[in-house]
């Protein structure tokens, strides 16, 4: 495993997609791991009381999954220097074995002179996007030994 080299990345490049099925059990596991025990993520009653159709996934779980797409592609989770997302629609998770499928896609939106790239991420449930303006800024490997012949076009 090694960090992706900046000379191997082009603007507009699409990252390999990621599909994740999220079930109620996943929400319980994430609640425990993250310490976020907001009952709208595990209690039907609490979800309905605030006008939600059913239990919804933690926005932070969706964001974490979105960043899995990026860290896998980058080859090093330590390369993610910035990440952001808006939680635009709730991910409703029914009480069944199938849960809800979330589809993630990523694209290199910008390649900067400092060797970082900005990946724009989309997350969809059925036909609706559930994250807005989701991005990750990745510091790629720009060391001269990684691609000595092609290093000349990168400053720093």
């Amino acid at each position, binding site marked *: 495993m090694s960090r992706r080299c900046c000379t191997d990345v082009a603007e507009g490049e699409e990252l390999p997609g990621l599909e994740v099925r999220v079930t109620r059990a996943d929400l319980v596991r994430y609640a425990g*791991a993250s310490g976020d025990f907001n009952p709208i993520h595990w209690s039907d009653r609490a979800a309905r009381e605030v006008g939600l159709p059913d239990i919804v996934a933690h926005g932070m779980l969706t964001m974490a999954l979105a960043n899995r797409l990026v860290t*896998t592609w980058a080859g090093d989770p330590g390369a993610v220097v910035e990440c952001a997302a*808006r939680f635009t*629609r709730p991910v409703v998770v029914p009480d069944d074995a199938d849960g809800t499928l979330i589809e993630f896609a990523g694209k290199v939106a910008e390649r900067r002179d400092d060797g970082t790239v900005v990946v724009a991420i989309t997350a969809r449930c059925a036909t609706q996007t559930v994250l807005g303006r989701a991005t990750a800024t990745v510091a790629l490997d720009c060391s001269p030994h990684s691609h000595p012949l092609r290093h000349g076009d990168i400053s720093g």
Partner: protein
Amino acid sequence: MALDPSFVGRCYPMAGTYQVGRAKIREFADAIGDDDALYLAPDVAQACGYSDVLAPPTFAITLAQRAQKELISDPGLGLDHRRMVHGSQSFTHHRPIKAGDELAATLYVDGVRAMGGNDMLTLRCEITDQAGAPVTTARTMLVIRGSDAEEHR
């Protein structure tokens, strides 16, 4: 507006420090379904030049939400938890979080405003290491939906 705007500018240092452990990182990585060796295997992390296993990019939320507890449970702020949803989140990592880190966190209230019948609370959590060096800046926007708001956003 239900929230007290005089809270803007206040800061809440989290009591004590947070010791980042390998087992907690593994538990978090499991919960997001990620078996990246850099989260799980210290020898792989060390071979990649890290002192220990890394935490996933959104792991810092565990610390940021801990640091938020004192503020959002303050009755003076006037926040109704049941109507609170997470609007947006960002992390700026000044360096990766790793097992063995002993972290401190301070929460800052950056903004309180009303928009479209909802209240928006903008928070910033500055996470630092034992030497006081910046590790992560976590920005959170919480939306407190107005009681007549029909749509969940």
